[in-house]
Every structure is written in C-alpha cells, then in structure tokens.
C-alpha cells in the first residue's frame, strides 16, 4: 500500500478548477506549504477553501489569494491579510465566517459521516441568520452542517508510506480534521518513514484518511509573531 507521490506537483495535479479544499493549519503553523506552493504554480482556480485562516500577504494561502485562485473562503479569522481585504471589498472574494469551534466540529462531523449537529456558539448573533434554532434543556442551539470537501491538504511532522501521520506540538490544529473531511487527502510531511517505523500508539491520523503522501522540501515554517522572554532588541 504505497501512497508516496514523487513531488507536490504530482500530488496536486488532478485537483480541478472549482474544487472545494480543506486546508490544515492555524495561522502559519502547520500549513502544507509545499502543496500550497505547487497549487499556486499550477494555477488551479475558482477554489473554495475551508481553512481556519487565509495566510498572510506573501505566504501560505495568501499566495493563492494574490494569484486570484480563490473564489470563496470558509474561515474563522482572516485578519492578517491585506490582499484578502481588497478582494473582499471589491466583491471578488466570497467569505463565510464560522466560529472556530464550529468550524473544527463541522470538519470533524463531515469526516465522521455526521451531516449536522447543534451548538450554542453563535446563538443571537449574525452567525445564526438562516439557521434552525432548537432548545435543549432550556438552552438554545444552532443547527450546523458537517463539511465534506473534494480534497484536503494537510501537513504532518512524520508520515509513513501508507499514510499514517504524526504531528508535532500545536502544528496539529485543524490537520487531522481536514484529513478526515477530504474525499481525497494529500499529506506532506517533514520526514517519510517506512511502514512499521511508527509505533501504532503514536499515530494521530490513521492512513485510511490519507490517499497521497509527499515529502515536503525546503520547509520555511515561518513564524507570524516571534515573541521571546528578553525585551525586543536586547540580544541584537
């Protein structure tokens, strides 16, 4: 069961224009940077992207925005990106804002075969518009839908060739949820190991959720806000 693709270019080649893609990451942490760059190079357009954030102007999903490949974003927070703001205000970009926990659960539910669920987040706010409200035990909840996507792009720390994934620290975030929600999931990893090299107890995403694995090259792993204990400039 070898799912190894030779390159990020090869792994994303079959994604058609107009596809819906779940993309892992929180801010710039744990984003599939090689797969995003390959998608930018290929120019696949009219995409609907489900991802917590939309990168920054010159990195992550911001690269696809700058190249006008994204038609719609489904996100919880998009504040770090000027291109985003321009395209949104010009009406070139559709946006669906979803509370972060609801977004995570919508992907989890979609990947788990659950079409909808009730959550209190958003009751009495603009998020509730057009949604069914139901009361359980004297509290109001909104009906939210599970999300399944055509593709998912995720980033792991380690992967084996049958698609088992291990993440590191807070780079896990939305990656396992996106992996399960995608009908075709493509994972990039910093290290690819042989089948059997990962302890079954340490695997975060079992290989059944992953169709293609690719070794990521030249990881930049950019940091959005570098904060350290010493005051700024002290050690420079």
């Amino acid at each position: 069961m070898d799912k190894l693709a030779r390159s990020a270019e090869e792994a994303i080649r079959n994604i058609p224009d107009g596809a819906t893609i779940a993309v892992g990451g929180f801010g710039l942490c744990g984003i599939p940077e090689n797969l995003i760059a390959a998608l930018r190079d290929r120019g696949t357009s009219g995409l609907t992207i489900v991802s917590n954030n939309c990168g920054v102007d010159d990195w992550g999903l911001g690269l696809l925005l700058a190249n006008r490949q994204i038609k719609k974003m489904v996100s919880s927070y998009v504040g770090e990106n000027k291109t985003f703001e321009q395209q949104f205000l010009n009406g070139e970009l559709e946006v669906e804002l979803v509370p972060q926990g609801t977004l995570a659960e919508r992907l989890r539910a979609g990947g788990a075969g659950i079409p909808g669920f009730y959550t209190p987040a958003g009751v009495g706010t603009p998020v509730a518009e057009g949604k069914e409200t139901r009361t359980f035990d004297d509290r109001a909840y909104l009906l939210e839908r599970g999300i399944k996507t055509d593709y998912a792009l995720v980033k792991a720390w380690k992967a084996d060739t049958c698609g088992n994934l291990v993440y590191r620290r807070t780079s896990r975030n939305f990656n396992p949820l996106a992996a399960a929600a995608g009908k075709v999931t493509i994972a990039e990893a910093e290290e690819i190991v042989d089948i059997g090299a990962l302890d079954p107890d340490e695997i975060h995403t079992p290989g059944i959720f992953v169709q293609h694995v690719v070794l990521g090259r030249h990881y930049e792993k950019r940091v959005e806000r570098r904060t350290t204990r010493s005051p700024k400039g002290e050690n420079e």
Partner: protein
Amino acid sequence: MKSSRSKIVSRALEEIKSGMYINLGIGMPTLIANEIPAERGVMLQSENGLLGIGPYPEDGLEDADLINAGKETVTAVSGASCFDSAESFAMIRGGHVDLAILGGMEVAENGDLANWMIPGKMVKGMGGAMDLVHGAKRIVVIMEHVNKQGESKVKRFCELPLTGQRVVHRLITELAVFDFHGGEMTLVELQPDATLEEVREKTEAYYQVSTGLLGTEKEGRS
C-alpha cells in the same frame, strides 16, 4: 497612578484561583499570563491545541510548531498536552474550562457581549470567541470603561453585532467590577481611585449597587 490597563490586569489576576484551567483571549487578556504567580498552579489553555502554555521562549529557542492562539511563539509547561482543534473546542464547549477572560468592545446590562466586529469596517472574524462564551464555566470580560471618544462601553444595549447573549458573568474595567445575574447588572467593587460618581457618569447601563458599597446609594432604574 497606575495606568488603566495595569489596574484592569491587576484586578483580573484575582479571578485566577489555584488549580484552574483557564483560557485567556487575545490582546489585553494575554498580558495577564505573564503575571500569574507560578505557585498558583493553573493550566492555560490555548484554543489552537495546547493545554499548559508556558512563558515566551528564550531568544533563539523559538519553535514555529509551538504557538498560542495569538500566533505568538510560546513554550509548553511540564505536564502540558497537545491536541487537535476539535478536541480543543470539546474542552471549551463541553464545560471543562473553568474560566475564560476575554476582551470586549461593548457589554450590555443584561450580560450581552460584543467583541468581534464593527459594521462598515473590515470584518476579520470571530475566531474562537463565540464558542468560548458559551463553553467556559465562568466568563470574565476585561475592557476600558469608555472608548477613545469618551463614550461608555458599558451600555443599556449593545449596538455592535453580538458575540453572545447574556454570557458575561463579570466585567472588570479600570473603574469598577460588575456582576451579572438573571439579566441584571450590579456594581460590586470600585477600583482604586474610582468613585461611585465617576462610575455613574461613565456608565450608560442601568445597574444596582451592591449593598456593601457605601450603604444605600442606588443607581439607575432601581
């Protein structure tokens, strides 16, 4: 005299009790993290998937894979755990987090909170705030009492789109501490250097005054 922010942060620190699991919002609430005495033994939850946020790393030891919800590089304390975003919000929504301290743009007398969008300005998104206000056992909002134009942010009704309805348990400003019960608001403490009169002038909301505060003086509609 202490700045407004430092008065708010000092008072907010008193909300943090030994053994609590706590989520601190982005902005002013994050400042509290640096002030919590280690011996209080609390665990800070970051909704991007970390329970046990430690201090900022030493210079040169930043780890791009280890950030907080404000996307700042952090460390993990001994005993910390990492998890995905759905599990993180299961902790939050499921009522396992003892306390959330959030910033605010407006708080209304019934406990409504608005802290995520200003119509006409670019909408950035609500992040995890709407989940947090319904999930954590206790919601404390910290904010300055008035805006830059000097208008009260403690209002009869929120004018901005809500983050949540009747979700605030306690509001801490540089002037006062208010509690919310059954859709009503009560002034329970004055901050250092604040007077009942100043609070009355700068508060649009109707509120009761706790009997412990200067006898029988009553405010607003009561």
